[in-house]
């Protein structure tokens, strides 16, 4: 049996900004497609299901995978309806050949360098390389830039050899003037066509080499004129706003210099051909797997060729490689579809479910959790137990205690002193946890391990553990600083207390928060030449802590939270089971936040709370049923003050939670179709269960009428 769920929601017309100071008016708009229709009291939704098309899989073409055509010195990656090809040219450079709709393998020719535009223009500038070093008249963005001990600042990479398996490939490149070596790595997910690329840069010389740019990959493709760049921007409480700009000739940069992923721009992008939309058109899409400062440049040449380069942010970047040392870049994942933005999202969702999330294809469905942070229930033993009892009656499966459980009696916000506050929990957390378990739920706890407060014992004992430039002012943000996790002693301290906390208490989930952008990113204890490694080592150590915690505590789950949704990327998602998209829980705003979020990331990980109304941000009153159905579009959770709910509210909540438990596999692991954008008078999304035996098709058409909207919907898988 196949299950499909259609969510429909009506909405007030909203201002462009989510902030209340900007949204001065709520226009009364009915549910018609026509924006001038003000009096509609209802609309008709016509649903037409066209089902069970035969699978669109051709059996005639070559098998998916990576193939090397030796006589052409060419690699061809075939997956689904996509081909990706590159080869070794006559100069022994690794040259990009093609990325787009699937072609026959035999149709690919050997690559040859391209001529310059004029007699005084080098061919290097015109010839797209898979991983260009800066040198030899390269004017495009390099994937690698280095300075050698003798002062040479040029890297020209030539092909050496390869190691090929069916779905993975490692190509060795070497600088023509030194033993600086790059292992260029490709891994194909044949099911989605998503290609993972990364590079290991090895110093095989006898002297140190300073890396000034180390990118994960360069992707080259030709979207033609009028191509559009799609990306996601935001700020606190208004994350995940989709943006699209006509891609200009020249270079466009998306980046974070904050030390972490950031909410301003997310490390995801798509480039679409002119006219592409949710349902149709060619798109190249990709995302970085890195939770530190990152950079993606998108260069469009005069010939409309596009090169996308991404990896470590080059700002303030300097990574000294001693002889024998190496640096691994983050993975850069990318794919192609000819079926519009919706399909690009579904491919990413499937890839994330299968290859990114910690449990991969075995990823456990997200339990319905309760968290009292927004309800402001006192973080003390008795009020929390009382709230847990109310939540359990509704069908909640996990109870999470948020900030406020730690520190000294009478103190507030003592980040760094991760002992249970004896005034609030005189018997420790055990009585609460035992009660939560007795109620049939598991237990989660909020932590913010990377921050330290000035009023904490940790800061007094280890003032040198925070990032700092000696002798210079230290900016205090929100009353706290950032621990320098790049230091191994800080890393070990952090792992130890977290492991002790999880081991001594039966904790199923750590809600790992991070509410501080970097300032003064100094590491004075490190040798001068290594101090800028802080940009890389910090994140590597963060990942190591999370990996070790999960290995030692296999049942432990992690929620990534960062001032709302400022740390969501494919690097943290390898170590997180769920993420917090935004502190903004207003159901109307959540429609657009969730729509933007799912452009790049699966709804499986998208925690969505039902909170109180009027909401704290806009003072907007939305019905409880509306709030539930918006939250049921992701990983349903509760954050309302249940003490305020009456019998009718409780009955509705229990009914909705029971329904969600039935549809949860489809919502969290199925295929998502954004039928109508929240930008309009109403929105609709559909989730279709994955079922290889029951493929079907979906199409959507809209029609306007004087008193309503007529939707023609069809399902497809």
């Amino acid at each position: 049996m196949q299950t499909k769920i259609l969510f429909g929601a009506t909405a007030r017309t909203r201002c462009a900004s989510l902030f209340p100071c900007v949204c001065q008016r709520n226009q009364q708009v009915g549910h018609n497609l026509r924006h001038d229709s003000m009096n509609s009291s209802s609309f008709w939704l016509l649903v037409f299901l066209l089902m069970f098309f035969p699978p669109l899989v051709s059996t005639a073409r070559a098998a998916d995978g990576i193939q090397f055509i030796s006589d052409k010195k060419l690699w061809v990656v075939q997956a689904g309806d996509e081909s990706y090809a590159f080869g070794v040219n006559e100069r022994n450079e690794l040259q990009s050949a093609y990325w787009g709709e699937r072609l026959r393998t035999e149709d690919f020719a050997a690559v040859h360098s391209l001529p310059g535009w004029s007699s005084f223009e080098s061919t290097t500038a015109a010839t797209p390389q898979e991983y260009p070093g800066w040198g030899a008249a390269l004017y495009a963005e390099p994937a690698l830039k280095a300075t050698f001990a003798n002062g040479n600042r040029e890297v020209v990479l030539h092909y050496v050899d390869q190691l090929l398996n069916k779905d993975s490939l490692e190509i060795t490149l070497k600088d023509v003037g030194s033993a600086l070596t790059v292992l260029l790595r490709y891994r194909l997910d044949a099911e989605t066509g998503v290609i993972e690329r990364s590079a290991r840069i090895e110093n095989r010389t006898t002297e140190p080499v300073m890396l000034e740019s180390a990118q994960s990959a360069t992707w080259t493709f030709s979207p033609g004129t009028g191509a559009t760049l799609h990306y996601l921007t935001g700020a606190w409480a208004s994350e995940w706003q989709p943006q699209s700009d006509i891609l200009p000739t020249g270079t466009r940069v998306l980046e974070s210099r904050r030390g972490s992923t950031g909410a301003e721009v997310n490390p995801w992008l798509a480039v679409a051909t002119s006219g592409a939309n949710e349902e149709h058109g060619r798109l190249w899409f990709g995302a970085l797997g890195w939770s530190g400062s990152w950079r993606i440049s998108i260069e469009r040449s005069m010939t409309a060729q596009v090169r996308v380069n991404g990896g470590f942010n080059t700002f303030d970047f300097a990574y000294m490689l001693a002889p024998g040392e190496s640096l691994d870049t983050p993975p850069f994942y990318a794919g192609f579809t000819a079926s519009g933005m919706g399909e690009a999202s579904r491919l990413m969702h499937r890839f994330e479910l299968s290859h990114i999330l910690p449990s991969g294809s075995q990823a456990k469905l997200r339990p319905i959790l309760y968290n009292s942070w927004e309800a402001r229930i006192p973080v003390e033993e008795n009020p929390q137990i009382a709230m847990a009892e109310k939540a359990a009656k509704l069908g909640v499966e996990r109870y999470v205690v948020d900030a406020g459980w730690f520190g000294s009696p009478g103190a507030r916000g003592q980040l760094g002193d991760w002992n249970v506050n004896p005034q609030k929990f005189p018997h420790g957390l055990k009585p609460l946890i035992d009660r939560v378990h007795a109620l049939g739920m598991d237990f989660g706890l909020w932590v913010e391990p990377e921050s330290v407060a000035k009023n904490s014992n940790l800061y007094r004992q280890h003032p040198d553990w925070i990032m700092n430039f000696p002798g210079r002012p230290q900016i205090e943000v929100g009353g706290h600083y950032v621990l320098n996790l790049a230091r191994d002693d800080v890393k070990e301290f952090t792992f130890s207390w977290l492991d002790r906390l999880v081991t001594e208490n039966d904790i199923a989930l750590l809600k790992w928060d991070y509410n501080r952008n970097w300032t003064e990113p100094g590491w004075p204890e490190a040798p001068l030449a290594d101090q800028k490694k802080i940009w890389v080592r910090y994140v590597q150590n963060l990942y190591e802590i999370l990996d070790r915690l999960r290995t030692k505590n296999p049942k432990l789950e992690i929620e990534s939270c960062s001032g709302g949704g400022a740390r969501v990327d494919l690097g943290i998602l390898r170590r997180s089971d769920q993420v917090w998209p935004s502190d903004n829980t207003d159901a109307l705003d959540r429609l657009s936040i969730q729509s933007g979020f799912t452009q790049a990331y699966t709804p499986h990980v998208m925690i969505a709370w039902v909170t109180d109304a009027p909401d704290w941000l806009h003072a907007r009153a939305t019905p409880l049923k509306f709030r539930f159905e918006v939250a049921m579009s992701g990983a349903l959770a509760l954050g309302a003050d249940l003490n305020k709910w009456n019998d009718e509210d409780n009955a509705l909540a229990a009914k909705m939670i029971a329904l969600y438990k039935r549809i949860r596999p489809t919502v969290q692991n199925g295929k998502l179709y954004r039928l109508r954008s929240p930008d309009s008078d109403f929105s609709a999304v559909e989730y279709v269960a994955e079922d290889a035996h029951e493929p079907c098709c979906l199409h959507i058409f809209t029609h306007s009428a004087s008193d309503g909207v007529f939707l023609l919907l069809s399902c497809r898988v």
Partner: protein
Amino acid sequence: MNPDATYRVETTDDALKGVEKISGLDLLHRGLQLSLRGDYDSAVIVFERLPSAASVSTTH
């Protein structure tokens, strides 16, 4: 497309009360009528395909 399939329909929207099963043919040519009223109205509709032997009994 399979117009002969039968679907069990469940919705949180009151307007669909009385519709329990519907054929693909009916959905194709007539569809479902939903009434959402006013601001912040919403509905979750669940379609479950029934085994092919199930009888079709459209009631709306």
